[in-house]
């Protein structure tokens, strides 16, 4: 009897499992669709697309596609915050931008912040120029990024950005060491459990005073 009950339970489970599969809802994506939709350049420098672009090539693309909003020198602020500027050779060496201390948001350029080269490649590829995202080829994205790296004083004028040189540029980003995830505002697993942050410890810790309080 017990065995029959177990079998019935198993059968019911299979039926329920079939329901949970929701047959006919959604369809498998083809390899072509996956390639078409996979728009992001991921955070792993080792897995960059096989593309290349030089500072010189990037300069021409920048002049045609970017300078109208960002200015010839990448420092225009009328429409968006500056791309370049505010970075010193000492920052490039240390990986911490000294000018960030006490800075107002309007005074902070992209290269004063940029923690990772992939951030810039990914965003430029998907969303730039403003309103015409995705219109640059991957080579053009690499070239214009090489030019921006040069504008920001990170690389020389003969630099060519590709998979092999990306690590060099990354190790010279002025604010590459300027970020921390040691805080309580990440809602996922804590760093000690393989995630990020301190597990959500509230900060600052205040008391619920009701009378004679210090306002």
């Amino acid at each position, binding site marked *: 009897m017990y065995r029959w009950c177990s079998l019935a339970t198993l059968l019911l489970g299979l039926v329920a499992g079939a329901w949970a599969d929701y047959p006919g809802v*959604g369809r498998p994506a083809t390899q072509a669709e996956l390639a078409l939709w996979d728009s992001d350049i991921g955070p792993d420098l080792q897995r960059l697309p096989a593309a290349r672009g030089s500072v010189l090539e990037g300069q021409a693309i920048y002049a045609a596609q970017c300078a109208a909003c960002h200015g010839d020198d990448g420092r225009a602020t009328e429409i968006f915050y500056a791309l370049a500027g505010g970075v010193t050779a000492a920052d490039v060496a240390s990986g911490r931008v000294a000018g960030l201390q006490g800075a107002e948001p309007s005074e902070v350029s992209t290269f004063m912040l940029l923690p990772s080269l992939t951030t810039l490649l990914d965003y430029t590829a998907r969303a730039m120029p403003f309103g015409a995202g995705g219109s640059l080829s991957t080579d053009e994205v690499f070239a214009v990024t090489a030019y921006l790296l040069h504008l920001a004083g990170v690389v020389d004028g003969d630099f060519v950005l590709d998979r092999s040189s990306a690590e060099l540029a990354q190790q010279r980003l002025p604010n590459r060491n300027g970020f921390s995830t040691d805080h309580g505002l990440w809602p996922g697993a804590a760093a000690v459990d393989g995630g990020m942050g301190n597990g959500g410890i509230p900060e600052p810790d205040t008391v619920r*005073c009701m009378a004679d309080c210090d306002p």
Partner: protein
Amino acid sequence: MTEREVMIGTGAGRVLPAPENHLCDADLQRLTLSRRHLMGLAVSATLAPVAVTAAAPTGLPGAPGSATPPPAYGLGQPVAAHPYGQPSRHQRGLERRALKGLSPVPQNSASFTPLQGLFGIITPSGLHYERHHSGWIDPDPREHQLMISGAEPALINKPMLFSVDDLLRLPAVSRMHFLECSGNTGMERQRAVAPTVQYSHGLLSCSEFTGVPLRLLLERCGVDFRRARYVLAEGADAAALTRTIPMELVERDEVLVAYGQNGEHLRPENGFPLRLVVPGVQGVSWVKWLRRIEVGEAPYNTRDEALKYIDLMPDGMHRQYTSLQEVKSVILSPSGGQTLGSPGFYAITGVAWSGRGKIRGVDVSMDGGRSWRSAQLTGAVLDKCLTRFHCDWVWDGNEAILQSRAVDEAGHVQPTHTVLRAARGTGSIYHNNAIQSWGVERSGEVRNVQVV
């Protein structure tokens, strides 16, 4: 009768709305003129209509000595005169508003919810605040699809495409949650700036969202949950905005792929036809016009989590992946820009919320934070949702500073500006959850002030 007495006569016992936000341009002009009366400024004869209206308080329904007949309006409008209903024409000034100068590009900007005019906890969908990075779009739902893929093939057994109709076929859940931009109240990080609560706290809304738990879709695609601990969500707007979401929130069934808001389809400004719902987390992670979910093994370090939405600390370091919206509250009435018509009874009311769960309690102070009274939580107290509070108050006509302070179920107490600044400085425009102060002057005018 002096002009001041006239004003107090018409406004007795009620909160006069702020000179902007509540009002259309004509109302605004009228109130500006009234305020000139109040301040004893010269008023020319051409402004007489205002004075006439104000000088005849006995003619107003409900005024002392007035004979108030039952209304007889005659035959009204036919059914379906407005196939999609509209607010009363008397409320036409209650609308979301942009802030001039916030951004030179209107497609990359924000508009604020008129919190001061709302009741309960639900934000009407048409008044939900906006924050777009490249303008809002209105994709055709017959063409829109949601791709679920992996950063590498091993992380997902079967990458899939879902149409909007596919998602509508699946078992749905509906939940009420607040949605707050992490930049809400960012203008106040150094000093009191915003004239009204619409601009100080209006990057905040609350809705019932309906959709499918993302976990259901990921399971259907055979995601390797052991390795894939992060989710990348991508929008179909020109910004192709992307954010990293922790898989833990997905596994707890908190994250929804939503198509419904307040009983109808999402509005285009709110992500039609699909948006991500990430309760308790800042609005930028609730990706609108959602078109792709990718699962990965590491955070993605995207533009809107590496160059924006990062918190500058006093030592020049930035905190990254700051996502939770912490315990916070604000009094909506009386609030900045409003005027108390006369001394007497007022129901102080506002909203409280926390990304860490339910609101445990709200305290209200009338003396700038020296003493506090427990407010009453009215209506539903829900997880990661606005909670309405109110507290009786008899204004004696003297100066007062009104504050509210929320406590959440995690035991976190909303901090003062002083305490928050001591911990984090004033450099970050994000995650300011400090106690808001409204200063009541003897004239009855209410102003945004800070107690530091």
